[in-house]
């Protein structure tokens, strides 16, 4: 199995189809990565909120017990 391109320039040119190939791959990778990072930040935000409310609940419980 050999690379289909001799030089890096040839690779980027994609035999004249550069715009389409790179647009398709770029959009796919962009969407997949973007989605991944969006989910991660959503998860972090949620964890922060849940931690906060758990602490509030725990403190409320502690004051009730006193």
């Amino acid at each position, binding site marked *: *199995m*050999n*690379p*289909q*391109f001799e030089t890096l320039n040839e*690779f980027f040119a*994609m*035999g*004249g*189809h550069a715009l*389409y*190939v790179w*647009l*398709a*791959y770029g*959009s*796919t*990778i962009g*969407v*997949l990565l973007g*989605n*991944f990072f969006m*989910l991660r930040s*959503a*998860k972090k935000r*949620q*964890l922060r909120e*849940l*931690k906060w*409310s*758990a*602490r509030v*609940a*725990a403190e409320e419980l502690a004051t009730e017990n006193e």
Partner: protein
Amino acid sequence: MSLKELWHKLGSPRWFYQMSSPWVTAFGFAAALLLVIGVIWGLVYAPQDYQQGNSFRIMYVHVPAAMVAQSVYIGMGVAGFVLFVWRMKLADVAIAACLPFGVMLTTLALFTGGVWGRPTWGTWWEWDGRTVSTLVLLFLFIGIYALREAIVDVELRGRASALLAMVGTINIPVIKYSVEWWNTLHQPASFTISEKPTMPPEMWLPLLVMVLGIYCYAAHNIMSRMRIEILQRESRTQWVRNLFVVDKVSGT
């Protein structure tokens, strides 16, 4: 663990949350590995198509997206069935998680299809059979999405969307077949962009890798969405609170 036990445990979002953690990581890594291999293989090593040249390489991102998008819908139909028959809460969580991901993937498939169509057909948009099937799929996703937006009550929202997903899933084969049939009638005499049966292994192997990669990505993505949704819904329960109290104690 017997199947029956597993079934009962699936009824508990808590159990799913705890058990899914390693799976999410595993699917994430598998997806990353497969997608990196697949992209490089498809872009650099796969041979050119004798007719389409290098624009053929778009297939490696377009076909997996379209395929997995359809699987996600069918998966949603199955989840709908489970929700409808066994009233399993987790199934509603799964539907809620599949929807945004499905819409995203279908849109992506349509976009890359258009980008592929430009050099092959000379137009960004062609009413090809596959295009129409994918577009209908997008409308089916959007319909359920809109329905879920319109219903406030969590339980009713789940049941209504489950019913619709089931009916839609039954309809998908009919829609696909009818569109293919229509396509053979109206297809202008140009070649179709499809995996030809004579495609050599060095062409379809990277496709296989990409398909598997997107499947793993889908599993990772949908499971993480489900985990977020579960925490959201169960945020008032003790087990969710305990998750964080323990964290705090060990942290100090």
